[in-house]
């Protein structure tokens, strides 16, 4: 049984039919990436999984259980952690406080435990340790992204959803970030990674899907997808007249 499965999911975002029947699966322990041009429906997919959007058709199954009717709080409690596009760290709270709140989905955990786990997160992302008590809004884009991921990990998720972590970040920082993502994956967290930066994503993924205007057009291993003309065409046009 796959950890996560989407069956013919159709979702709307505003008036727009963003997803037109998407089926995919993520097995436990995998790092699967979802690629596609802007507007393809990648973010909508993650929002449908995490409960911010209810699908108009289809099902989302997590560990075999349907979750597509649940709200985000409930989905978080089931062990799915969504790090949304644009980082969305709490600007008026410190780095440490942001991280602590990442554990809000867990039952019966003490403050002391959370504080200890927060310390661990600084080992994965040493770059933000100096800013431990700085307010969120003062951090740079790259630092905020790392903070958002660290916060997402505090949920001890069974499935981590990452939405365009490289967005707006300089190439060098993106490299560091993806190094950390690879590290997280190595420690056993299942990851569904949505990315516009196809090459970067495929360098860390086990498998990939390609979305184009709401439908899946490709699936395969990184080797199959890398340098695939179809992938380039999905982003930059040039296929089918």
């Amino acid at each position, binding site marked *: 049984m796959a950890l996560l499965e989407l069956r013919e999911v159709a979702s709307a975002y*505003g*008036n*727009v*039919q*963003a997803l037109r029947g998407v089926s995919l699966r993520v097995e436990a322990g995998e790092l699967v990436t979802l690629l596609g*041009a*802007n*507007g393809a429906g990648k973010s909508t997919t993650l929002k449908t999984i995490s409960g911010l959007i209810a699908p108009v058709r289809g099902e989302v199954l997590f560990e075999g259980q349907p979750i597509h009717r649940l709200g985000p709080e409930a989905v978080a409690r089931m062990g799915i952690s969504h790090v949304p596009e644009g980082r969305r760290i709490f600007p008026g709270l410190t780095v440490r406080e942001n991280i602590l709140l990442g554990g809000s989905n867990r039952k019966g955990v003490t403050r002391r435990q959370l504080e200890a786990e927060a310390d661990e997160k600084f080992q994965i992302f040493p770059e933000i340790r100096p800013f431990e008590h700085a307010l969120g809004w003062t951090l740079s884009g790259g630092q905020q992204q790392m903070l958002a991921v660290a916060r997402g990990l505090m949920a001890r998720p069974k499935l981590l959803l990452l939405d*365009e972590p*490289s*967005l*707006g970040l*300089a*190439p060098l920082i*993106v*490299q*560091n970030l*993806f*190094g950390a993502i*690879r590290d997280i994956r190595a420690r056993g967290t299942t990851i569904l990674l949505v*990315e*516009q*930066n*196809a*090459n*970067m*994503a*495929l*360098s*860390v993924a086990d498998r990939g899907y390609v979305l184009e*205007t709401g439908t899946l057009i490709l699936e395969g291993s990184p080797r199959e997808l890398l340098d695939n003309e179809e*992938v*380039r065409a999905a*982003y*930059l*046009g*040039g*296929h*089918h007249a």
Partner: protein
Amino acid sequence: MPPKISRPWLVALAIVAIALPLIPYRFEVSAYVVQMFMQAVTYAIAVLGLVVVLGYTGQINLAQAAFFGLGAYGVALGTVTGGWSFWLSLAAGAAVATGAGLALGLTTIRLGGHYLAMITISFQQILDLVLVNWIEVTRGPDGVAGIPRPSLAGFELADDRAYLVFCAAVLYVVVFAVWWLPHTRLGRAMRSVRENELAAEVVGVHTLRTKVVAFSLSALLGAIGGGLYAGGFAYISPDNFNFARSVEFLTAVLLGGAQSPFGGVIGTLLIVQMPEWLKHLPESLRFIKDVYLAVYGIGVILIMVFLPEGIWGLIKAARARLARPADTTDTSGVAPLDFDVPGAAGGPVLRVKALSKHFGGLKAVDGIDIEVARGSVHALIGPNGSGKTTSLNVVSGIYRPTAGQVMLGEEDVSLLRPHQRAGRGMGRTFQNIRLFSTLSALENVMVGAQRDRNPIGRGNRALRARAMSALAFVGLADRAHVIVRNLPYGHQRLVEIARVLAGHPRLLLLDEPAAGLNQTEKMEFVDLLRRLRGHGLTIFLIDHDMGLVEKVSDRITVLNFGRKIAEGSPQEVLRNPDVIAAYLGTAGKVN
């Protein structure tokens, strides 16, 4: 055109309207009842002011009782203290009130929403305090007594019944004017401001002026009501013109239906008459009266939750269901859309020079230069966050540039407001479609035709003709009278384009025009763009669908991190390794 009322209804309405105020002449009606209706009629005039500013224009006004008071005190002090005639005093009160309304309207240049509510409340409170405390002038809490009745064409209106007929006549005139207003140029502008102020501004509506006029009209109507009230009751005191009264007016207009003068009248009748009717309840039901005042407040909440368009909204909805299906629009005789842009010369239509836009430390756009040649389709692309939308927003005037210039033809428009740019032929559509949802397709497009200096005739007829031509061009002439929120998504997109075309644009800015369209719709859209280019229109667009961009564009500029990284024909640009790297990213060394 205002909705057609069938002949029988019109006659019935006229009969009732004329007969009602004449009833006291025919039947025995107590003076108390006549006065009650006098009060209702004068209040209704004030409430109609709220229909204009709140119902039509969407601006909150919690000072209507203050304007009512200015009119009342104008008449009272003018006649009693100054010895002036009733009419002169009324005019003076109305003038002061309108001036105050104008000033309040001007505050909307900076403020909206809560701030506006607060400013109107402050004005209301200050006026209340002045009325109570400036005893030398206003006589304070004692009020002003002995206000005389006016005489009309030599006929003294001393008889309450005669005065009621007079007030009713004024009310009817005001109702008619307010009923007609939504279908005028100004009225459409007001409704567009209410529905989507940003879109209205971008499409060419002078939004500030519209709001100021709305406030001024509201104040004027309030003052007229107040003046007539003073003349009717011979005695006024500050108690009648306080914040509580403003809230009462607001409740009346919400209950009745803020979008219609009939709603305003219905609401006023209910709010004014309700306590009176309750007085006459039999003993057993008397408790309702005690509870009424408390329930009144809950009623407001319930109206907001369940009946946002008031009682009149219910009536309208019921009528719509019972009505025959709408007449199909007569699409014969619609002239083809005329694209001539007078004064067109050679040279680029749009030039962006060293343009930058910073948000605090973030350099969203960092020094870009673009030239859009006349009659071409020029696309702006780049990965998410590259600054495309920000650039477009600076060009259309929603943002002020941090540095650099925007030239439209030979003119530097960098500091012009969006409606001014629309007045020079710059048209723009939005990624997430900003139509005026409760207006029909035709009305939406007519607002586009209303932009300043549009080279068409003045008057509704010319606007309508232009709008129908634009709708016909996009193939929607037969849906002209459909309310746009009932149109399917693809058609809404087309209406937005028609709206911009109605303004004779020389530059068309399209923000992700194909977003949300399916493949078929996209093909049709490509055709539309090609037709537009064929007519000589210059188009500057952003989109993510590269297939579409490649098909329609003559030239493409690519942005990344706020800077231009490539420019050229689609073939050159879409194979450029830098561009591919920007989109697909580089794997680099992952440590």
